[in-house]
């Protein structure tokens, strides 16, 4: 049994872990829950040897162990799949999997055939659509995420820690992964499963530990707690999270704000037409890589469009760039905050104000006091947990970073917001807050195109949902309720049953 006892970790002013307790038993899948910034990733990294603890001890079967590097952890049989990956884009899949493994050596040299075969098997097992000699940089998010798990399993660990690996996976991929995990579990593997998706936790895990503010609140059997209990333990508040879905009648469909006609983007988007009306939240649903991300980026101007027209506020757009789109009242929010959202070394203040500064003449002056108070207001309104407004954004937890990006765009009062899986890795509470904010703004006339990898999230927030499949819209749902979830799931897999209502 792997046990972490009263672990503390201090980052500058932030106490990421405060006497936290956690244990993993062989043959058990254990869930670790907590809101954004509660210290889940931190304890995972402590166990992985990537972060040094300040206090506390770690034991295996009662004996204390020292984890000074990832090498130590691997030697103790602990392997991790990281929330932000540990893959090298510049290397191939097989080089990544066997970066440090003697499993494929013959007399000290790489046995290429053996390595290829093993990699091939693994890719097949995980349903990853890549060749062993594909460069990892060219894989999409969900394949990377699966590969991250596969890489951890290559070490044949006794303890496997998975930090939000399902955050960008689709249902079918989740099922594949869970099958593999259950099989490993039967062979005695102990798994720690960190996630914000409760249904998956219920589906896979037996026991759960819940963190709040770096402390362990409870460790218990999952059968003994309800959804509401968990939320209570995570947040310390008794209120249930409200369903955000609004009762408002479908937006008046007179003048579309944005009209997209026969849009094509390279080979990813074939021929997409849709209208977006003021005040509506249009959900976009689809498996990973069906063209929805490219579609959103093309509308925003960061991908080149190859065919079709975009008519915005009655005018046909001719030149495209994020800068132009932003200036004309569009905003874009990506869920991939590390590479597309956050300026980690810059202050929270700068992170919030950057888009506004992009709107102005490049040498325009800034009135610090005015923007500072606006930023503070937004932070309060969005309930972002920060230290000082001058601290670097890297000092925030993932969910809070995501809220910063929302704050950045809200400052601009955009008329159209394009969202690419914006709540990826955001905890339930923050997610519902974000959805509340979006809803509030759309009531004032703002329109959204909202893509999410989680269709439950979509049914909660959208007025209307379109489904992308292989670069085309193959279905549209106008009446949103939880009942359509099964239809959505079917449509995502390409069931050509046009739900014209």
């Amino acid at each position, binding site marked *: 049994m792997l046990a972490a006892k009263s672990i503390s970790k201090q980052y500058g002013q932030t106490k990421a872990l405060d006497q936290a307790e956690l244990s993993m038993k062989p043959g058990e899948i254990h869930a670790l829950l907590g809101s954004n910034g509660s210290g889940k990733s931190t304890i995972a990294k402590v166990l992985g040897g*990537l972060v040094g603890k300040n206090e506390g001890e770690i034991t295996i079967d009662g004996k204390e162990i020292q984890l000074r590097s*990832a*090498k130590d952890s691997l030697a103790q049989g602990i392997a991790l799949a990281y929330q932000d990956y540990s893959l090298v884009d510049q290397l191939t899949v097989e080089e990544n999997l066997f970066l440090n493994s003697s499993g494929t050596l013959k007399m000290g*040299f*790489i046995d290429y055939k053996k390595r290829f075969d093993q990699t091939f098997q693994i890719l097949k097992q995980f349903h990853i659509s890549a060749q062993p000699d*594909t460069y990892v940089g060219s894989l999409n998010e969900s394949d990377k995420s699966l590969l991250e798990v596969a890489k951890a399993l290559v070490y044949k660990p006794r303890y496997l820690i998975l930090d939000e690996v399902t955050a960008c996976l689709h249902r079918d991929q989740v099922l594949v992964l869970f099958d593999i995990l259950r099989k490993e579990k039967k062979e005695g593997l102990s798994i720690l499963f960190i996630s914000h998706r409760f249904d998956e936790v219920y589906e896979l895990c037996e026991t759960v530990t819940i963190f709040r503010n770096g402390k362990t609140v409870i460790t218990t059997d999952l059968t003994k707690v309800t959804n509401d209990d968990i939320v209570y333990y995570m947040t310390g508040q008794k209120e249930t999270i409200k369903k955000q879905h609004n009762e408002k009648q479908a937006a008046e469909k007179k003048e579309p704000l944005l009209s997209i006609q026969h849009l094509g983007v390279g*080979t990813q988007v074939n021929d997409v037409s849709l209208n977006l009306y003021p005040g509506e939240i249009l959900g976009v649903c689809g498996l990973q890589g069906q063209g929805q991300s*490219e579609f959103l980026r093309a509308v925003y101007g960061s991908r080149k469009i190859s065919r079709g027209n975009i008519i915005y506020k009655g005018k046909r757009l001719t030149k495209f760039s994020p800068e132009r789109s932003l200036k004309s009242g569009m905003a874009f929010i990506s869920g991939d905050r590390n590479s597309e959202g956050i300026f980690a070394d810059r202050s929270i203040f700068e992170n919030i104000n950057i888009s506004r500064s992009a709107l102005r003449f490049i040498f325009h002056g800034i009135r610090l006091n005015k923007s500072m108070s606006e930023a503070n207001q937004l932070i309060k309104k969005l309930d972002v947990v920060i230290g000082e407004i001058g601290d670097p954004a890297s000092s925030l937890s993932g969910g809070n970073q995501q809220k910063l990006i929302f704050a950045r765009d809200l400052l601009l009062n955009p008329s159209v917001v394009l969202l690419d899986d914006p709540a990826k890795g955001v905890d339930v509470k923050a997610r519902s807050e974000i959805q509340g904010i979006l809803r509030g703004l759309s009531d004032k006339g703002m329109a959204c195109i909202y893509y999410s990898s989680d269709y439950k999230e979509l049914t909660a927030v959208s007025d209307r949902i379109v489904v992308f499949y292989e670069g085309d819209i193959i279905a549209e749902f106008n009446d949103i309720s939880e009942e359509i979830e099964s239809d959505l799931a079917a449509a995502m897999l390409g069931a050509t049953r046009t739900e014209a209502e």
Partner: protein
Amino acid sequence: MMHTLMIRVENKMKKSQAYSAYIMLLLLVIINLLIQGAGFANVSTINSLFLVNTPLILATIAQAVVIFCGGIDLSIGATISVVNAFAITAGQYMPVPLAWAGAFLIAVLLGAVKGSIAAYLRVPAILATFAISTLLEGVALLILPNPGGSIPSSIYSVYGGVFAGFIPISALVIAVVLIGYGIVNRRPLGAQIKAAGANPRSLFIAGVSVERTKMKAYVASGIITGIAGLCLTALASSGDPKIGNALSLNSIAATILGGVDLSGGWGTVGGAAAGALFLGIVNNIIFFVFNNIIHSSTFAGIKLSYLQQLLTNIIIILGLSSSLLTHLKKRTEKEEKDK
């Protein structure tokens, strides 16, 4: 049969990270053949091309290995000067083979020193090696205050000779180094070095010591630098404490010409060698054109020697831009893959 072979070669080329470098080199060779004709394609021209450029080619390979692991070495030139100064000076007091072995070991040791500073002290390599290069320039002068000394002429005749009637011995040295690094690449270390450059955190997580890996890369680079220094000594057949200094910047330009990514983790040693050879051939063409084709001493009032330098640099910039080819290539490949 022939056809499928061609396709296989072509595919392998396209997959190569040095794709553009090879194409560029080929292009330049063709241009040169068109200009100079048979004058270029004869054994003695080719031999002299390799003979003179082997130090640069090896320095570029050494530079590439350091760049793979996320570093850069501005002191390669000064290291080569130290090797040269030591080999010549020590050669006066001890048997020449011993002196040369000592000079070589110094380069290896210096590789280890640079590696420790970059890996363990974590000082940005570009500045650390800038400081080291100042230091080593002083050391070379201390070892050999004035240019001079000589080596047995037999060394030069071997180094400058040809094998089997048409293969330059100097090219064989390059081949040996390339094969040597190929062996490293057949061990996990090859990919580990690139991981250390591209994403050290991932390498650490894989349980491999980033510091040690970088160390190994710098030592490997030191070994190759040592060979480069000895080749330059053979070429010059004497000592000069400043002889290698220009190689630092030239080798960096050549690695980039060879398709190596300066930010680490991407490229091949073969590409690097091709990049260096590219520079050598540019010099060759420029000499030929200005010596044999252009017959006035000024052009539009500008001295030809200035135009000659201008043209050299412009060709180099064009060569550097050719990485555009692979860049576009990568982009389209990625787009296809996304599908």
